[in-house]
């Protein structure tokens, strides 16, 4: 809805409603089969984590333009604003639900994004010996790619994972540098 003057954080209709939907199970099964293929092809769990992150990064770089085109968002005034918009509106648009932000560092150079739903990991049960695998690491890459497209350089990692018994997913985002050419 482009007629809104002020940013509407509510998720009724709007950007999410405009997106074409596919069956979430198709996503889960596709991603799962893909992770299994990487586990076969790559030598260590760590290398699979890296590859998933790299793939996510390439996805993130690209979806930012889509997000701005469909959401009607303008530029964000600061990093805190960017994080909130990404978590609430970005996640809502692409994943179908809102994530949330907490634990901002004093200097505002780190934060945690957290959520309970995760369509990538539906139906997944990690077997024994996979505790160092970050199954949903594509999400860390996506966040890194999204923020890179906005000239914010970050490192992300999962610090809590439902597949490992935690009550929710938490990704810690550490901001390394904010490049000055950010568009106004």
């Amino acid at each position: 809805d482009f007629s809104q003057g002020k940013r509407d954080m509510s998720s009724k209709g709007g950007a999410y409603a405009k997106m074409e939907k596919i069956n979430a199970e198709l996503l889960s099964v596709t991603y799962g089969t893909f992770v299994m293929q990487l586990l076969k092809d790559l030598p260590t769990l760590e290398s699979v984590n890296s590859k998933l992150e790299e793939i996510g990064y390439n996805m993130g770089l690209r979806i930012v333009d889509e997000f701005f085109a469909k959401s009607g968002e303008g530029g964000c005034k600061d990093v805190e604003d960017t994080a909130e918009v990404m978590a609430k509106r970005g996640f809502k648009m692409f994943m179908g639900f809102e994530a949330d932000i907490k634990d901002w560092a004093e200097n505002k150079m780190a934060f945690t994004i957290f959520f309970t739903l995760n369509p990538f990991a539906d139906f997944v049960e990690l077997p024994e010996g996979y505790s160092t695998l970050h199954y949903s690491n594509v999400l860390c890459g996506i966040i890194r790619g999204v923020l890179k497209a906005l000239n914010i350089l970050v490192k992300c990692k999962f610090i809590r994972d439902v597949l490992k018994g935690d009550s929710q997913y938490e990704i810690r985002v550490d901001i390394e540098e904010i490049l000055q050419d950010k568009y106004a």
Partner: protein
Amino acid sequence: HPHRPTLMGVTCAAVVGKGNNPLYVRTFGVSEDEALRFHFVVHTSLDVVEERRVGGLSDLYLGLLCPTDDYKVYGYITNTNAKLFLVTDDIDIKEADIKSFFRRFHAAFVDFVCNPFYSMDTAITSASFDREVVQLARSYQ
């Protein structure tokens, strides 16, 4: 040996693959030795499944396959030829309950099979699938 009462009639729930290989056999309220017997009970029921199927069934629920001395074995086949079995010693068990058990057992199996770490047609060792089946069996009190 004393026969302990089972959890409301469900003595055994089993999944058998399309190659007639047992994937999951879960017994309730029986000893280790007796548990082995259920593998045999399920195995002999497979022949009856074959007979029932020759007739070109449209229904997944196969009904009572064979009443042995102490137990009744009910069968269900999925569209991908996985077989589900329910063994019960409850003479009063209602057919509606059996059908609903199979529907839910089937649903749990379908969800489980979506786990990318599970290789199709191999033994099911998942603790959470097991918990779900136990919970399912418990609900038929």
